[in-house]
């Protein structure tokens, strides 16, 4: 027996200036299934789901809910039709309580709020699905996993029959992910339809009853569970076979490039963040820092590059102490930074490629012509770099904020690598990039490693860490909970260390 469709999207087309984000896409959700929407970043997954959730209005196509055609003018319409979306970036109000966030927009709540009653009801609702949350807690007090549960409860409370989760595991530990998948299975069993948007094939293998693959805005295939295998999926996603094996030609060097000895620092709120962090990165070595986001990764990168004061311990570059040095002094010692926030910290959004590329060179004398800058030379250099790093630009002077993520990152790396640093600090270098751009960036990093550069790689993507790193250091609550050679460990062990687990720690230390 075929189960009825809860929702059907037919021939959905959505255009943004210059791109067709969705091109005649068909997609449907059955009762009781987990349907994974798989695709690279930029393939149109989130756009499609935003259409379904009423955030975007499609230019063409139909939305059919349980047999009747509907027009969603706003997210409110979608919610009333039983479609709830858990966004990748949570749509929660930090200063409100959990309960206040959940009842937001619900016109069935009494005009004068009785928070006690509402909180009690919510506690019951969340317990029924095994989603543990405290309805009276303020959202800013919650962990990422808890916030996600609030988002799910929010949609259940509004009676969603179809639950859409956009990249739900991006911010979770492996253990939290397992818990989430258990909850999702429970919701499917209760007769709802669950849509999970992801670019991770592993997740498709784990939870999908069906999978629809999007590529360049088109739905290229919908497969049943028994038809799913990794190789086909990869081929469908990318349109070509991906060789995801990296060969490291040379072993890492012996020379110590970066040394941290018992480093401490504070976070933005003035509380202790990094505690007694000690490690060494050698020349020709990629040292990966794994950890759940928010455990001191950003602070670590800032401390090494001089953007954050050190409150204890010492940092050395090639044996020279740089503790407490200004960013400029640290740059002069050969440290380059690819920051988390490409467009805010890394590049100047409103300037063109030429101006962005000379941000470090302008004072070295290379571009000097008397008291002025030799802009002709700068343009020439930029053209060379654009060719060498295969950066796609509409013009050398167009604001770089118009570039795609992959091209931005290439531009940033072009600037940092041509400075020929001893140490490159790369924070989430491929976040938000598609597979091809990711490959390109990874290859660039590996080339630099072969040339003897020391690389401190900070990432929340364990696959990336494992693929690139020679050694892996795990950061949890501002402490290094283990340092392990990459070939001697597995994701499970690193996952446990990320949670600060002791049993794994013994093996590691």
């Amino acid at each position, binding site marked *: 027996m075929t189960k009825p469709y809860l929702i059907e999207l037919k021939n959905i087309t959505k255009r*943004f200036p210059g791109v067709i984000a969705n091109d005649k896409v068909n997609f449907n959700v059955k009762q009781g299934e987990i349907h994974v929407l798989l695709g690279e970043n930029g393939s149109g997954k989130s756009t499609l789901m935003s259409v379904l*959730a009423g*955030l*975007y209005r499609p230019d063409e196509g139909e939305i059919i809910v349980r047999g009747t055609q509907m027009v969603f003018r*706003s*997210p*409110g*319409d979608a*919610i*009333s039709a039983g479609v709830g*979306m858990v*966004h990748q970036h949570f*749509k*929660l*109000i*930090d*200063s*409100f309580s959990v309960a*206040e*966030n959940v*009842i*937001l*927009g*619900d*016109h069935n*709540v*009494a*005009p*004068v*709020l009785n928070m006690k009653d509402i909180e009690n009801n919510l506690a019951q609702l969340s317990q029924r699905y095994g989603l543990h949350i405290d309805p009276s807690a303020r959202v800013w007090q919650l962990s990422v996993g808890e916030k996600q549960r609030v988002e799910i409860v*929010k949609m259940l409370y509004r009676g969603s029959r179809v639950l859409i989760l956009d990249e739900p595991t991006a911010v979770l530990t492996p253990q939290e992910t397992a818990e989430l998948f258990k909850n999702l299975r429970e919701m499917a069993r209760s007769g709802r339809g669950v849509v999970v948007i992801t670019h991770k094939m592993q997740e498709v293998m784990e939870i999908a009853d069906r999978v629809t693959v999007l590529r360049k805005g088109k739905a290229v295939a919908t497969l049943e569970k028994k038809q799913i295998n990794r190789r086909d999926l990869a081929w469908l996603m990318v349109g070509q076979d991906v060789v995801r094996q990296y060969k490291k030609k040379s072993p890492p060097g012996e020379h110590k490039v970066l040394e941290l000895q018992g480093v401490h620092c504070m976070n933005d709120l003035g509380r202790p963040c990094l505690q007694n962090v000690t490690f060494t990165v050698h020349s020709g070595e990629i040292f990966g820092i794994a950890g759940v986001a928010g455990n001191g990764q950003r602070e670590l990168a800032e401390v090494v590059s001089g953007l954050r004061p050190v409150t204890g311990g010492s940092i050395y570059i090639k044996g020279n102490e740089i503790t407490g040095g200004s960013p400029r002094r640290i740059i002069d010692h050969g440290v380059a930074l690819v920051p988390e926030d490409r467009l805010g910290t890394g590049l100047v959004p409103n300037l063109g490629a030429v101006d962005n590329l000379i941000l470090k060179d302008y004072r070295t004398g290379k571009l000097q012509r008397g008291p002025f800058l030799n802009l002709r030379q700068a343009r020439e250099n930029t053209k060379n770099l654009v060719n060498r790093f295969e950066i796609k630009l509409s013009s050398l002077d167009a604001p770089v904020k118009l570039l795609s993520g992959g091209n931005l990152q290439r531009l940033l790396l072009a600037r940092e690598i041509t400075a020929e640093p001893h140490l490159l600090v790369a924070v989430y270098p491929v976040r938000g990039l598609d597979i091809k751009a990711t490959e390109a960036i990874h290859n660039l990093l590996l080339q630099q490693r072969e040339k003897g550069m020391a690389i401190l790689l900070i990432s929340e993507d364990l696959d990336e860490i494992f693929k690139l790193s020679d050694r892996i250091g795990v950061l949890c609550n501002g402490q290094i909970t283990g340092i392990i050679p990459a070939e001697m460990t597995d994701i499970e062990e690193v996952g446990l260390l990320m949670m600060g687990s002791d049993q794994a720690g013994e093996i590691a230390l």
Partner: protein
Amino acid sequence: MNQEIIVAILATAITAGTPILYAALGEVLAERAGILNLGVEGIMLVGAVSGFILALHTANPWTGLAVAMLAGGLMALIHALLTVTLKANQVVSGLALTMFGTGLSGYLGKAYVGKPLPVPFKVTPIPVLSDIPVIGPVFFQHDPLVYLSYILVPALWFFVFRTRAGLHLRAVGENPAAADSMGINVFFIRYIYVIIGGMLAGIGGAYLSLHYVPSWMENMTAGRGWIAVALVIFATWNPANALWGAYFFGGLDALGFRLQTLNVMISPYFLKMLPYIFTIVVLILVTKRNITNHIGAPQALGLPYDREER
């Protein structure tokens, strides 16, 4: 100073504070919805002049008041159109609105400058309550607009913090994207509260020309609109706190006035300056307090909202 003078100063503090209070309450609502309106001064002036003209011609202060609210609402509608729909910079739009309001009120009121209003809002003591010693003369021997503000303050506090509509209002100012995703109409809510804010500022202006003075003079708000904007920060976007703040500034106003009549040897110019000096001092102190206690402005204050922005 004897008791009589103190009572008189306190009572004047309330009348002097009331126009600021109305304007500040309006600004609290607009800012809670995420829209900074620096046009308050201009809106008050337009409210003052239009209220005065209509009250004079109809010989009824209530018609004047209604027209002042209407004019304030229309002025604020311009701001809403520019900042909500066209997503213009809120600071620039607000400043332009103040300049526009100053000019417009001067132009409209040219023929009415200095004319006395035969039918101002009259002091109507509340029976029984006004006979209580000290409290009676301070709080209950005023005009109807003061009494209305006594009701309005707790009503607005309850509305903002205890009702569903108030929750939606705060949500729109804190995180419009979140509110939108839950089916709240961000644009509608922003329009409504900016307009209501303008109507309240219109009342504040009309209070000056229909009771406090009562007459029309060019630029008669004399910066009260700006004090109201500052007061919102002092009040931490809470209508109840706005009451104390407004009476405090009203008190400084009244004190300056009284000290002059008592022949205290302080320059009248210095006394007139007091409320403005205190505005700056209070802003510095309060901003420090708000930062250390993590009391912030609505998170999305001043930011336009665009649903399809990527």
